């Protein structure tokens, strides 16, 4: 069976609710390209995830245009992770945050020497940011700066 087509379904929902149509970002050009310069088994991996993950003790995300970042130490116990988001069913993410923030499987892949190492911190935010400008002018540059500080060799991005 073909993948779900979300764009027409969301467009119909918005029309039914009387919202103005969402402007999907469409890029027809060739995306940028940075080749991997060493085998994965020698790479330090960075990660950003948009499922609204925070660690207990941190301020949670709010649901009105929140584009702030949290940093999650990669030695954190998974039981200290929380999930909050206005736009998806949180049931499974609250049962096991690895479904949107795959910290345990990545730690395991490092132990197995499939991956070299993880950055000391990963980065989280809450997706559903309606302004593409805020993403390109604020959020993405902030993440790039953090990945530079973290000296990562490759970056995994996990949206919801």
């Amino acid at each position: 069976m073909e993948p779900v087509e979300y764009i027409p379904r969301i467009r119909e929902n918005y029309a039914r609710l009387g919202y103005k149509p969402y402007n999907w970002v469409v890029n027809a050009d060739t995306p940028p390209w940075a080749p991997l310069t060493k085998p994965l088994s020698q790479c330090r991996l960075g990660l950003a995830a948009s499922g609204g993950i925070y660690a207990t003790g941190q301020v949670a995300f709010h649901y009105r245009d929140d584009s702030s970042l949290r940093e999650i130490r990669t030695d954190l116990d998974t039981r200290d992770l929380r999930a909050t988001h206005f736009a998806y069913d949180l049931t499974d993410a609250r049962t096991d945050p690895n479904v949107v923030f795959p910290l345990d499987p990545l730690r395991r892949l490092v132990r197995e020497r499939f991956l070299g190492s993880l950055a000391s911190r990963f980065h989280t935010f809450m997706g559903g940011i309606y302004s593409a400008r805020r993403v390109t002018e604020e959020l993405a540059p902030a993440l790039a700066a953090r990945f530079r500080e973290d000296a990562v060799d490759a970056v995994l991005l996990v949206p919801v």
Partner: protein
Amino acid sequence: MGLVARHVEAAGFPTLCMSSALDITRAVNPPRTAFLDFPLGHTAGKPNQPELQRQILADALSSFETMTAPGSARTLPYRWSEDEEWKGKAFAEGDDRLPRHDTPQYQDEEDRRRVEGGETPSCPVCRP
């Protein structure tokens, strides 16, 4: 997240986008995409299935070594269920998103108390 991918890649870092919404990801056209055909909220696997999660991540990450062309996308070989009934329901029953509160929405009250009570001196993760 595709916009973030393009920006971070242009800054010199190889990126891989996982995705559960192929049409949205394709429209933004990030450098590398690993598509997992699961319901939204499960971009990296099913809950409490560590073997499956490990396999999905290993498969996805191997794309860093196998993809050679900008804009590559591959579908990971996993199915959510034998029947694909969930696909009919996804986003088809109207808008069930939560109200857009502008105050922190904690998973549980204990989290709120820990932050608002300032009771976090020994916690290593509690940077604001």
